[in-house]
């Protein structure tokens, strides 16, 4: 019984351990954990404005989570989501600035550009892995930094005149709600991107579970040699998987560029969304639906955290610690698994 639901129990216990660790840290450093978590909750769901902001934060988390999960399912580890997200963001804003087109062409074009840019950024580690057996982890990390510096350079010299950010994109490329829609969440920055995220969740599920190509991709993830023996083109599947993963990540960037901010700005450090995406995918068991639930959890944590210093005095970095610890507990799930199996054996006796 426990064995069957292990994929649900392990993440739940990891989250629980993370929350407990968070309370301990608050207690040790002289804060009240109950006040801390209450302010966290209020900051995420306390007012309709915060609910809107939480959903807005969930959108890129879903897409970044899908990107990592998709690669994972096919046996690849894409740490490069962060870089793919940055180039996607840049490409979307670039298209949003450069053209003046009717909305029904301009917006899809900008979104598509982000997916293509992200896909290209995933193509490089994919082709290196497939053709030269270079480990994708190191390449994707390096590509993150290349993306960061190159996009900063382009924003500074090409898209603006030595400024720290670009102009705002044309309205025809924007995902922002109309004024009336914005009123519904008390003028939060929630935007139409949630539709994109939902569509992508469906695409990921359908592609992996219902198509022959998805079966092939998963099969390569399970066992490359068996897949090759069965006549599948392993190399091509590896490249394809990295490109699709990168495209999801690029879309996450488009959500920020076209929806939340409406411009691209120079980043002195990474956005963190891509790295949190690793946690989202791991906790979500690398399934589309799991990613949605975990993205909601993380979106609430991140947005709620901003309220913590004001209401309870707890530094909002506490949430980063909790998220890191959750990843840690999931990574060390061997421990949790052994513990659960021992428990279930005892019950059986």
């Amino acid at each position: 019984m426990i064995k069957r639901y292990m994929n649900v129990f392990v993440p739940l216990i990891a989250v629980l351990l993370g929350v407990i660790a968070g309370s301990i840290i608050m207690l040790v450093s002289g804060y009240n954990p109950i006040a801390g978590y209450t302010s966290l909750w209020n900051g995420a769901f306390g007012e309709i404005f915060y609910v809107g902001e939480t959903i807005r934060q969930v959108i890129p988390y879903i897409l970044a989570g899908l990107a990592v999960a998709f690669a994972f399912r096919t046996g690849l580890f894409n740490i490069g989501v962060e870089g793919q997200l940055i180039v996607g963001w840049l490409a979307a804003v670039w298209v949003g600035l450069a053209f003046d087109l009717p909305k029904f062409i301009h917006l899809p074009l900008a979104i598509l550009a982000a997916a293509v840019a992200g896909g290209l950024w995933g193509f490089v580690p994919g082709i290196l892995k497939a053709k030269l057996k270079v480990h994708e982890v190191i390449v994707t990390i390096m590509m993150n930094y290349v993306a960061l510096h190159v996009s900063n350079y382009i924003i500074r010299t090409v898209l603006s005149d030595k400024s720290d950010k670009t102009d705002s994109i044309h309205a025809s490329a924007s995902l922002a709600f109309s004024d009336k829609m914005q009123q519904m969440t008390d003028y939060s920055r929630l935007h139409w991107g949630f539709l994109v995220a939902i569509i992508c969740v469906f695409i990921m599920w359908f592609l992996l579970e219902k198509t022959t190509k998805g079966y092939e991709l998963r099969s390569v993830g399970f066992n490359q040699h068996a897949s090759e023996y069965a006549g599948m083109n392993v190399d091509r599947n590896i490249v394809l998987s990295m490109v699709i993963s990168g495209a999801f990540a690029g879309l996450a960037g488009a959500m920020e560029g076209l929806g939340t901010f409406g411009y691209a700005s120079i980043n002195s450090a990474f956005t963190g969304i891509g790295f949190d995406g690793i946690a989202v995918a791991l906790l979500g068991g690398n399934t589309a639906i799991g990613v949605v639930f975990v993205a909601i959890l993380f979106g609430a944590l991140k947005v709620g955290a901003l309220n913590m210093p004001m209401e309870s005095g707890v530094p909002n970095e506490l949430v980063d610690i909790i998220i890191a610890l959750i990843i840690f507990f999931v990574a060390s799930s061997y421990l949790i698994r052994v513990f659960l199996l021992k428990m279930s054996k005892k019950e059986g006796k």
Partner: protein
Amino acid sequence: MDIIQVLSIIVPSALLFAAPLIFTALGGAFSERSGVVNIGLEGLMVIGAFTSIVFNLSFADTFGDATKWYALLAAMVAACLFSLLHAVASITFRADQVVSGVAINLLAVGLTLFLVKLIYGKGETDMVSQAFNKVDIPILSHIPLIGRIFFANTYYTSYVAIIAAIVVWYIIFKTPFGLRLRSVGEHPMAADTMGINVTKMRYIGVMISGALAGIGGGIFAESISSNFGHGTINGQGYMALAALIFGKWNPLGAMGAALFFGFAQSLSIVGKSLPYLDSIPSVYLLIAPYVLTILALAGFIGRADAPKALGHPYVKGKR
């Protein structure tokens, strides 16, 4: 500006930026030679930078001039202890070493910024008063020409780092301990058969990597940034990892790569004030270490072979 003048600006600056990378890459060599991937180097540097700055700010009055060296020691100890988390997760609990390393990085940044706010009530610390400063190294700086380029207006830490690289090379390739460490990373089962305690060797490897990365972070904080905030360590850990790979997991190779990356990093900062170089967009220099690493991995700059058991947890009795 003549060539000597240009060199006497570039070389010390390159050495300055290389020192933290060398130490951290040497740390990475211990961990990866024992078969444990250590992407957490970045996080360990963060811990080292944070500890050294806090120590420096707290004890500057007590220890005076020697504070900065004691602070490095504190950074070493703190990061060594912190690396235990990675060791426990990836060796004992058989966690995916990459995931565990990512967690280390996120945890280090979160934890240190949390503590900075807790201790100082703001997002970043004050500047330290007892930082590493430019010095003329006695005797050597009087050598004509070479002295002015390499040993004047430079930092002691750079030379400590270069000496450390030679020592580490000796330890890894010429001592019984180094042989055991390498055997555990290449073929743990064979090592186990010969009576080497694989788990213990890997723990030692990871903890040394923590200690050295802590020193690396400490040097960066005390000689380059002089305070600690959210962007203090921004990719240097990954760059050190890149240096290690670029140097083919050899301490001296890693040192060479780190010197080159330090050169690239310093050029992107001082390049603007030098003739000819000011016309090159700094972005090329900024991305050079990363692009070169990708090329090295792809085999365009000679094959780089990782230790064979790198990334695989060792489970006794499993073939």
